[in-house]
């Protein structure tokens, strides 16, 4: 049931480490939902999701240790590549972008189908992704990719080590963490903070401009447009309403006695 990857005997060859990245609207800009479709408005330049910089860094470190390349895979409208260029500038060897007009309004499962198809073309030994994106927070796509590819997964990894053809990871749990191990190929999702992402060097930024970046469409991947987009998502936003708002209470500038106000407030609530 090995759906992707190479034969284990060939493991002396350089590894292919695929990192799934998302290009998102700058979170510093205020977000908005389209009044017609209720989907997230994606106008303007997209940037590399900050949580994906951790995945790229983990991929680069493992590739440097084990010998291999990082290949970034992304899906975005309008042949948007600026976020992928950021990942290439960090050190990824090449990138694959899936861009197709039919993909607007695609949900997490549809996205996973597209990414899985693109990852198949990259002969991945290891697939790395963030646990969730900073704009959508669905948090299921990477493990959906694993299931589609017939691969095991370790989600919520806060430490990742490669030992030959085995990946070992510390996986977050409610009460601490588990040490989990699995053979390659596999999918691993990493939490932010797992490593310190490198900043692209000037040399890296220059080199990124000439690195291979393949832009492919649905037909290149053999995906039926009916499986993606709004039709494929089989869910619908009914309404967007303002939440019950909390009103601001009393705001006091600390003149050295601010703590007394807090004590009095806690006393009033009988917390102390």
């Amino acid at each position, binding site marked *: 049931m090995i759906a992707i990857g190479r034969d284990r005997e060939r493991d002396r060859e350089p590894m292919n480490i695929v990192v799934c990245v998302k290009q998102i609207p700058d979170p510093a800009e205020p977000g908005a939902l389209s009044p017609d479709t209720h989907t997230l408005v994606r106008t303007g330049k997209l940037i590399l999701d900050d949580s994906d910089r951790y995945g790229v860094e983990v991929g680069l470190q493992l590739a440097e240790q084990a010998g291999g390349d990082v290949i970034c895979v992304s899906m975005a409208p309008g042949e948007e590549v600026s976020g992928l260029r950021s990942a290439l500038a960090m050190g990824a060897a090449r990138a694959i972008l899936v861009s197709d007009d039919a993909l607007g309004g695609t949900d997490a499962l549809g996205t996973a189908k597209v990414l899985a198809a693109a990852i198949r073309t990259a002969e991945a030994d290891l697939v790395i992704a963030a646990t969730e994106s900073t704009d959508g927070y669905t948090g299921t796509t990477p493990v959906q990719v694993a299931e589609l590819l017939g691969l095991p997964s370790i989600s919520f990894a806060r430490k990742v080590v490669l030992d030959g053809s085995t990946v070992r990871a510390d996986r977050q749990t409610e009460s601490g963490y588990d*040490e989990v191990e699995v053979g390659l190929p596999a999918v691993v999702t990493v939490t932010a903070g797992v490593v310190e992402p490198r900043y692209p060097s000037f040399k890296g930024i220059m080199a990124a401009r000439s690195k291979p970046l393949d832009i492919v469409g649905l037909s290149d991947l053999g995906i039926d447009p009916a499986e993606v987009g709004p039709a494929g998502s089989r869910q619908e936003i009914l309404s967007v309403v303002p939440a019950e708002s909390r009103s601001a209470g009393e705001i006091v500038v600390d003149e050295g006695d601010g703590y007394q106000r807090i004590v009095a407030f806690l006393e009033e609530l009988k917390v*102390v």
Partner: protein
Amino acid sequence: MDRIWVVVEPVSGEPAGGELSPISLELLSGARELAGQVQAVTWGDAEALAGEAGAYGATTLWTAGDLGGGLPGPAVAAGIAGALGAVPPDEQPEAILVPHDYDGRDVAARLSVRLDRPVLTNVVGLEAGGSEGGDGALVSEHAVFGGAEVVKAHFTGAAPGLFVVRSKTFAASPGDGSPAEVRKLEVGDLGRTGEARIVANHVEAQEGPRLDQAPVVVSGGRGLGGAEGYAMVEELARLLGGAPGASRAIVDAGWVPYSHQVGQTGKTVKPTVYVAAGISGATQHLVGMKGSQHIVAINKDPEAPIFQIADLGIVGDVNQVLPKLIEALKQR
């Protein structure tokens, strides 16, 4: 709504098992209100969990059994898919509720592929669809933009709908049901998907109440200035009988472990009192704590968004305010 299935989890780190996690009990309680019949799905020692599952409303407790060190995701998803293939059409669940946590999201993601059904995650409210839902299917609520707006959504395709529900969406309340009937799921051959193995389990020492259950939460942010400043947050939490929390910024910076994180990517908390110390109030953070009954915020920046939802806001340096506050509380 006639039938809902709920994925429930044994408390991790309990060698003997026998207890369901708080979010499992919340989901069972919510499902009981929404549907005429509730069945639950779990793994591990189901016989030990059947009493609790039944008390909270499940008539049947399906189990994937002993996972032999495997992660729950692949086995539970395969088991549910198998069971749905075997039960008659008039016994099919219309919705499956899954906890929004580490194992729950793995189960939901793999089940989504197995059934070829979409998922709705980050659910913070669930109601029987009336005029809006049209066909009586469930309508889910999702907080967006830091909880400033609520999106209502529903599934338009074939049942069951997969809803991944955040903690504190429902209040846990036991009913008077008798123990659930335990039934075995046929997991079948998982191929490579089930190969990941847990080789060691680490429980991190934790004093005081759990973050998501504490009556008081004191959270620290970047305004503390450095990792050493977090000791004040821990001390204040201890003095108030609460739990220390953190913003994503200082977790990412490595000052405190991820298990302390409050917010979209961390825990949802709804304590009696929430103290935000040196936290500006990014939307990421607000969505995890704005359900608190009372909010106290301390921040240098008078424009910080946290002040817009605080009942008491102190514009000042946490490194000045917290030591005095701790000292005053110690004197009492």
